[in-house]
């Protein structure tokens, strides 16, 4: 019983308790990475990420783009011969990296998700989990499509020219969230 948790333990704790087998049961067979549709774009394949976690190589893991590239298609999870919930692992890593605010430079994912969640926390509804198409039908398409990333920045600056829908009992809703995370936490 050591009082300082290993990286592996830290991540395992972030994994939802009911989710599959612990990481150290990984047999490094590569099914996940062979399956993953995004693997070719990742710095490390999912299998390598698990290896790095088990090896305690925190820096390499947090600096990688792997988990930000996870499309959460769950294909690895259903195929894993050790029944490790790899997708949940990727979520856990995202949370960890946001929590420690440590991630690869120039990744859109982290900033985007924070902004996204803030928005919903404010409005109760998103105007679109995928940004672009929301105003496709009302705005010049070409311009938008060439500037999807630009659009993101717009959002981040909060200058997007459409209003997100809001729920009626917004005040309750906010207090409800307040019971989970102090509003300051994300504002």
């Amino acid at each position, binding site marked *: 019983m050591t009082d300082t948790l290993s990286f592996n333990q830290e991540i395992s704790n972030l994994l939802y308790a009911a989710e599959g087998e612990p990481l150290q049961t990984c047999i490094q067979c590569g099914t996940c990475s062979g399956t993953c549709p995004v693997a070719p774009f990742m710095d490390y394949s999912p299998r390598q990420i698990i290896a790095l976690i088990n090896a305690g190589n925190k820096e390499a893991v947090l600096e990688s783009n792997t988990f930000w590239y996870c499309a959460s298609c769950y294909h690895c999870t259903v195929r894993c011969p050790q029944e490790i919930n790899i997708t949940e692992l990727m979520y856990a890593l995202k*949370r960890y990296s946001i929590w420690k605010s440590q991630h690869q430079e120039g990744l859109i994912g982290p900033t985007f998700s924070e902004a996204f969640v803030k928005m919903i926390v404010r409005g109760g509804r998103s105007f679109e*989990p995928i940004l672009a198409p929301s105003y496709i039908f009302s705005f010049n398409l070409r311009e938008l499509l060439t500037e999807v990333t630009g659009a993101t920045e717009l959002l981040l600056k909060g200058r997007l020219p459409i209003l997100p829908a809001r729920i009626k009992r917004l005040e309750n809703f906010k207090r409800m969230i307040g019971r989970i995370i102090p509003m300051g936490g994300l504002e």
Partner: protein
Amino acid sequence: MKEYAYFPGCSLEKMAVSYHQSTLETTKKLGIKLKELEDWNCCGATTYFYIDELLAYTLCARNLAIAEKTGLDVVAPCSACYKNMFFTAAHLKTDADLAEHVNFALEEDNLQYNGGVNVKHLIEVFAHDLTPEEIKSKVTHPLEGVRVAPYYGCQIVRPQKGKEDVEQPQFFEGILEAIGATPVNYPLKMRCCGGSLIISSRTAALTMVRNLLKSAVDSQAQVIATACPMCQVNLEVYQQQVNLEFGTDFNFPVMYFTQLIGLAFGIPPKKLGIGKEFVAVLPSLVPAGKK
């Protein structure tokens, strides 16, 4: 008469309003009542889970709690919403501790969730709760000879195991056959479209879209049928992007399965929200070869 609580989800409010319309039209024809949840909130898509797991569960739980009051199974047309609600419900059933936290938060909205809700994806209603006969009985304009590529995407069957064959399910095909269409078997029907990556990892997402479209085209499909707003938008709206990126020339129609069913039921296209697409769909809906 079948009745369900209905959780449209954010996308169906605007972006995928045609999915919303066609859903209401077709279910009406089939004598299914959909009761929209009062004052529902966003399910959180995938992004919540990036930030705070408990928060994510709480948001879904709020909708579940609202649904529980109706005493009905809740139906979600969006795969992401469905997956989030399905697993939130599952975890809340088994994990008393989580349930306690969540209900503590729900108190603020005078709600409480007791784990009594059954979560279904819209397509499950058509595939499982209805028999093919029931669907057939309403078909007036069978889509004879139309080759449709059923696109399952990810979260309808994954990550649940045991419920369906997660690698080669057939229920979507079943629905298409019921409306007279010819489902084509193409290898990527279970593959991810990259929807959630389109902002954060554009190239990856576009590649995935490209592969999917190619696979559908190779299988001589005339149209892709989806059961998820993310997938629809991703596969359709980004075709131009794909073409720019890879020098391809895709111009391939992507429809909601409810729209196809609606057409087979003889519901006027307008009522099904047809016409808002980037790639006109109607021209492609003539029997293969007769083009």
